[in-house]
């Protein structure tokens, strides 16, 4: 049985809107277990709505989306194929059996640059339809070097296509509060970070290690299965598991950063598809974006940033021995 799950994942200009049920990977709940939401058939075709946006024609939109699709398809450790099917007059919303990407007027979402909605088979986790809209309330640009004051459309398209493929939000980023109650990004380690870079920035046209690990986990190619490893463990506080802790694996050899969350009341976590090698683990509460950008349920953010006492090795083709990291309340 198929049903339209209330899954909407958005990229925000600043925080303030919710995107429920999202973490590293989007999921559907089956018999109490969360299964990955993925496309079971490829290539994944998409249509471009022929409506223009604020400063961008539909042809320019198509170009930006196709460049972003090519970026995801180029990840060598994953098997992702996205295919442009044509232009359409249909809006980028609703249920019509087509994946439609386009501009929509959403003045009510005054902090949402774009969002992705899904139709998912709640028995298998198969995604059957996904639409992406970009909010015409914002001025976009497709200039090769970016345009001051305008949001780079290719960067937002790359983020939303990540959602379309089944990725949730990454928490690898640092932000600060602004006077208007929103957040400003200080640094970001993933295209899938929920808060966009400043208007005019184009750095989010390039996937980061966290994005690549995530897509390789959802659609693993032979290289991802044989040549990568995982780290498993548990985060505890006062002997109890911590739900919703963010763990970042940092490789001192390569400099890459890949993160994931504890997703059970016991505080268990898995960071998969890592290049083999030793990693420093940093555990932090989710406090650089609103928790509901990642979780639909309450999480524990009352603990201090903590490092694992030792490095943990992600072995080639396997997983580490489980490590327990004990955190202290703030």
């Amino acid at each position, binding site marked *: 049985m198929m049903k339209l799950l209330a899954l909407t994942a958005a990229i925000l200009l600043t925080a303030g809107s919710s995107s429920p049920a999202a973490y590293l990977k989007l999921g559907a709940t089956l018999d109490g277990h969360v299964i990955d939401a993925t496309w079971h058939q490829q290539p994944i075709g998409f249509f471009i709505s022929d409506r223009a946006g604020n400063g961008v024609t539909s042809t320019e939109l198509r170009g930006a989306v196709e460049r972003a699709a090519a970026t995801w398809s180029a990840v060598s450790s994953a098997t992702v194929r996205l295919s442009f099917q044509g232009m359409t007059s249909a809006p980028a919303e609703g249920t019509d059996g087509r994946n439609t990407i386009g501009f929509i007027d959403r003045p009510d979402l005054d902090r949402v640059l774009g969002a992705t909605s899904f139709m998912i088979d709640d028995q298998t986790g198969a995604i059957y339809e996904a639409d992406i809209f970009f909010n015409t309330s914002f001025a976009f640009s497709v200039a090769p070097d970016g345009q001051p004051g305008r949001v780079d459309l290719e960067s937002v398209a790359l983020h939303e296509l990540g959602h379309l493929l089944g990725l949730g939000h990454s928490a690898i980023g640092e932000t600060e509060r602004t006077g208007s109650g929103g957040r400003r990004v200080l640094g*970001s380690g993933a295209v899938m970070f929920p808060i966009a870079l400043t208007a005019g920035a184009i750095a989010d046209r390039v996937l980061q290690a966290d994005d690549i690990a995530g897509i390789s986990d959802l659609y693993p190619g032979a290289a991802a299965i044989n040549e990568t490893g995982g780290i498993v463990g548990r985060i505890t506080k006062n002997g109890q598991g911590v739900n919703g802790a963010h763990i970042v694996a940092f490789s001192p050899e390569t400099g890459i950063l890949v993160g994931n969350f504890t997703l059970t009341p016991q505080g268990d976590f898995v960071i998969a598809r890592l290049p083999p090698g030793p990693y420093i683990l940093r555990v932090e509460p989710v406090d650089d974006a609103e928790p509901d950008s990642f979780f639909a349920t309450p999480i524990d953010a009352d603990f201090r940033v903590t490092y694992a006492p030792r490095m943990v090795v992600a072995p080639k083709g396997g997983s580490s021995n489980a490590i327990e990291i004990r955190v202290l309340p703030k």
Partner: protein
Amino acid sequence: MIGFRGQVGAAGSVAGLLLVMATAAFAQDSPALREHRVTINAGAIVLGGYDIGSSSAKLRGNGTGSTPSSFTLLVADSAFTRVTAPELRVGVSLTKRVAIEFGATFGHPRIGIGISGDAESAAQQLPGETLEQYLFDGGVNWQVPLNLGRHLAPFVTAGAGYLRQLHEDRTLVETGQNYYAGGGARYWLRGGHGEAWPAGLRGEFRVNMRRRGIDFEDKMRAYPTVSVLFFIGV
């Protein structure tokens, strides 16, 4: 300048004279290895610590342009700590002064990690990770012709080896090379002048250059070793 050159010349002459005297005395008084015989050495070696690199976890900064400035999440400085390990060396003497040697060491060095630059956490030293480390080497040992008495003889040595390091979980192996040069002395407690079953003590200092193995900057690293071994000729 003239005076300085004169002093060098005089010093050189004295050294040359001493070497001639020592060489002459070596055959009569200094102990020596037995030709074409095997010497087994066993004891302890102290491997000095050394840095294996500083690495920064960087996020992309929030700026315009294709290469905005980065944001540092943390800085990790890693180093091997000093470790004491057992050492076994087997030598085969080609002459009374020259021997080829093969050695093996097994130890548990620790990688310590210093964390700094984290805006949300104080600078701290993490206990780090304990490794299993194997070092197999081979080299040449030359007994210097200096007369230091009937029991003591200095030597110099140089060689190269194979390094194998296993991370704490024993799930990842890293390999490298080790090159060394150094010197020391043997002190014969028994024999040393042609008798059977010579035995004694040996002290040695080396400067090592390590290439590859666990290193976060992939640089050649220098570190010292000091060893004390008991030896017996068979």
